[in-house]
């Protein structure tokens, strides 16, 4: 038997125009063909206004295509009766941690979506307990969400989505508004999810250091998909990134400058550790 990766979300010839768009600007999205595979960790990058948020909203049926289609586990998002199921399969995490928690305790918040599914309460309790253990939130279950740090709020939001046993989690700049410690916290958690081969993560980010940890990177520009591939290929293509006003990791940018100066450094270097190690081994040779 051939082991083909299973597609969770697929966009075909997808286009989207916002009602307010002027004739002078490009459509928010056009001609997008892309698939998200089960269990993969996908980073979505691109300049401000390139269509990243719009694409996530089309993936979980918050928006419906102007042209083309989006299918979630094979079902088109145009089909209104399927929307609850689509949102369960594709959960979304937003940038602002303060806008997503609704209940009076963390526990109720995590259970919120499950209550709407009208599951038996024993099952709800069991699932909430499971994700709370997984995300290390057990000690916070009785806390009111507004007393949590930004990073904890994002973890609770992610727990609420995970409890729905989704196929895919869509994260729109989940760390943009967090401080350093919380950012690390959320990123560690996203990487932990990655070990779970049943859940795909689509992570929109302006931090090249975050995209560098993905398995695949997709680049949007002016509503079009302009590049996709592993981070080692996409994030080391500095001429592409720079032409779009984007950047690679500091290590990769610095390595490129040093290569111009004659330093012999590996061409696909992305992480700080790789740069530091290479620089030190150069020293040993010279």
């Amino acid at each position, binding site marked *: 038997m051939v082991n083909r990766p299973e597609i969770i979300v697929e966009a075909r010839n997808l286009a989207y125009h916002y009602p307010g768009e002027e004739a002078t600007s490009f459509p928010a999205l056009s001609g997008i063909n892309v698939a998200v595979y089960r269990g993969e960790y996908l980073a979505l990058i691109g300049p401000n206004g390139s269509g990243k948020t719009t694409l996530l909203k089309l993936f979980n049926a918050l928006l419906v295509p102007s042209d083309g289609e989006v299918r979630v586990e094979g079902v088109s998002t145009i089909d209104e009766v399927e929307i609850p199921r689509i949102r369960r399969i594709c959960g979304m995490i937003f940038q602002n941690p303060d806008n997503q928690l609704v209940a009076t305790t963390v526990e109720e918040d995590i259970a919120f979506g499950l209550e709407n599914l009208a599951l038996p309460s024993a099952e709800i309790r069991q699932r909430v307990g499971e994700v709370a253990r997984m995300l290390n939130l057990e000690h916070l279950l009785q806390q009111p969400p507004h007393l949590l740090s930004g990073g904890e709020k994002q973890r609770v939001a992610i727990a609420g989505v995970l409890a729905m046993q989704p196929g895919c989690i869509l994260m729109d700049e989940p760390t943009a508004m967090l*401080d350093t410690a919380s950012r690390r916290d959320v990123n560690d958690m996203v990487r932990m999810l990655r070990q779970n081969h049943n859940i795909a993560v689509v992570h929109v980010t302006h931090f090249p250091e975050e995209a560098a940890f993905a398995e695949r990177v997709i680049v949007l520009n002016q509503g079009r998909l302009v590049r996709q591939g592993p981070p080692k290929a996409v994030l080391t293509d500095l001429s592409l990134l720079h032409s779009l006003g984007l950047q690679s990791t500091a290590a990769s940018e610095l390595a490129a400058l040093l290569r111009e100066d004659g330093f012999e450094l590996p061409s696909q270097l992305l992480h700080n550790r790789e740069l530091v190690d290479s620089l030190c081994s150069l020293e040993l040779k010279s």
Partner: protein
Amino acid sequence: MFIGTEKLTYTYMSGTPFAATALNEVSFSLGKGEITLIIGPSGSGKSTLIQHLNGLLKPSSGRVYFKGQAIGSDKGELLRLRRRIGLVFQIPEEHFFSETIYDEIAFAPRNLGLAESEVRIRVKDALEKVGLRAEQLQYRHPFQLSAGQKRLVAVASVLSMNPEVLILDEPTAGLDPSHRRNLFALLDNLNRSGGLTVIISTHHLDDVVALAHSVFVLQGGRMVLAGPPSEIFTTREKLYDLGLSLPSVTEIMHSVKEKGLPVKTNIYTLAGARQEINRLKGRPGR
């Protein structure tokens, strides 16, 4: 003292069981034309401090000074103060009040009694300075924008006021690298050419530390460190203990040094790092 505080203390919901002291005897003083960074984990009091500086919050005790004068509570005076000390809020969309982006940015110039033809020029100019194209979006509702575009519009609407002091609360959250660098270049330029005083709170230090004359570090409502960047970023342990980070490039230099190569670590730009590594190793000959 151009702008500063003396033993500024502030308690939210004072006199209730929920009272929370967000600032505790914070004192500092800034000269005209300085660029200052305020850093600190979330909840450390950055936004609370910032909102005192243009009179939006009133000290529970202590004082805030502008041009040698304590800020009082006279309504008319406060209104005039807020035109001279412009503030870009941490979550800009919570503060939009106009139906179009044009009106949002035109508010301040109209208040100055300028003719609409002049206002139009100012709006276009402010949008272009932050890297947005007026004809593409000025007649949209401020909500009909991407996350990064909203933040840029908020900056433009304060710039159009021509303030003497510009305060930005986490201005780069959600900005792509080129809009971030453009914003910092703009601030640097206004500072050098017009003596604009700038205060920036941020978790992301890339591209901004090189501009800063001073850095304040807040923790738990207290000012725990203050000094020029070269002092604040020389040791990383203290910052790590506070849950803070360094600029990516500085981080790399510290790691290189830790591995035994004698590099300077007070380096905040790629160009600086490139030069320092070249100085250390010379050009590897071939």
